[in-house]
């Protein structure tokens, strides 16, 4: 079984990310200089990976090409300078409905399992001494609830 990760962003202004950014600045995280948000999907597939990638961005359920950007793999998510990523996912199954839709009505071939979440990309000012620590504090403060979600910080 192969794993394909898809990151979906917005071409237009992301109001949720902007609201979170301003809230975090008000909360004192002044070294946070940018905050971007991507919907994250992790697919477990059998069969042809390239054909799957082509189909999954075409079905308009996860990606609307008029307003969304789509990237396969975290390494290709645009990041610059002093950034950290926080991946927030719900504990337990949160995507059985969308999985059924993709497998059934939309006929995506080879899709066996999927997970989803939100990837936050935090940009810190150059003088930030410990961005890992600050990313952890920001995640705990606002970006996830430990009561039903988990967060992983990535460099």
């Amino acid at each position: 079984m192969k794993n394909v990760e898809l990151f979906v962003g917005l071409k237009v202004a992301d109001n949720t990310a902007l609201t979170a950014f301003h809230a975090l600045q008000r909360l004192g995280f002044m070294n946070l200089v940018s905050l971007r948000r991507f919907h994250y999907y992790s697919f477990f597939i059998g069969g042809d990976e390239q054909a799957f990638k082509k189909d999954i961005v075409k079905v308009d359920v996860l990606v609307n090409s008029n307003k969304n950007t789509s990237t396969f793999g975290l390494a290709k998510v645009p990041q610059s300078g002093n950034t950290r990523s926080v991946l927030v996912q719900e504990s337990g199954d949160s995507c059985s409905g969308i999985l059924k839709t993709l497998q059934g009505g939309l006929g995506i071939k080879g899709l066996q399992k999927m997970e989803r979440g939100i990837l936050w990309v935090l940009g810190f000012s150059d003088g930030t001494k410990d961005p890992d620590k600050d990313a952890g504090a920001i995640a705990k403060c606002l970006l996830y609830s430990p009561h039903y979600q988990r967060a992983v910080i990535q460099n």
Partner: protein
Amino acid sequence: MKKVAIILFPGSNCEEESKRACESAGLVSDIIRWNEPKRCRAYDAFILPGGWSYEDRIRAGAIASHEGVMDAIKEESGKGKPVLGICNGAQILVESGLVPGNLSEQGKFQVELALAPNHNPFVSGYYCTWVNIKKASAKKTPFTSLVDDVFPIPIAHGEGRFVSSDASLLKKLEESGQAIFKYCTKQGSVIDEFPVNPNGSGNAIAAICNKTGTVMAMMPHPERASWMRQVPGMSSQGERAGPGRKIFESLREYLK
């Protein structure tokens, strides 16, 4: 004359209904904007109404819980002033730690609960229906002295499932009498399954209060059951008081 402040956040949409329900119960109330924390301190009780504060961005209630007005409400609630959070208001109270209201060693409210996305076998996301709730605790609160044991009430939310990372917390809250209302059948039987429990809330809990009972987070909407004409099958009784009004009448009696 004791007065109630109904706190309006950007995205609240039940402030007028809540005000009408207060007035129908004989309470004097004003709608106070979230950016007027100093003004709200003059009031004797607070209602955080339903809606979608900040469009439920990140999580329902997450942004509003960090607003300055919540610091003012935390301080005023510390003086014993009642605070009722309805639906989105409940989510704000939970996200701010005012419910269940335990303090850390540093004296800060700990966020020990969450209102997670519904678990519903048929409907993903927002779910709106009438349910029945019952008083599940003998604890005295400013909001429950006059309410019936079992009554119908509407819910309308996508994130209404009380959960905690501490597996024993909900049980502890039940034992301490802080689980004030539970979802039940018309006859009052608590069944922890859909459709009686409409959102998969832990132990079928619909409302939780703090230790003293003065701060209560409830997911159902009492202001939408304040006239019998609003209650399904009861519309012929028109303007008579509905079961939800008793929440507000209890508050009126408490403030006397």
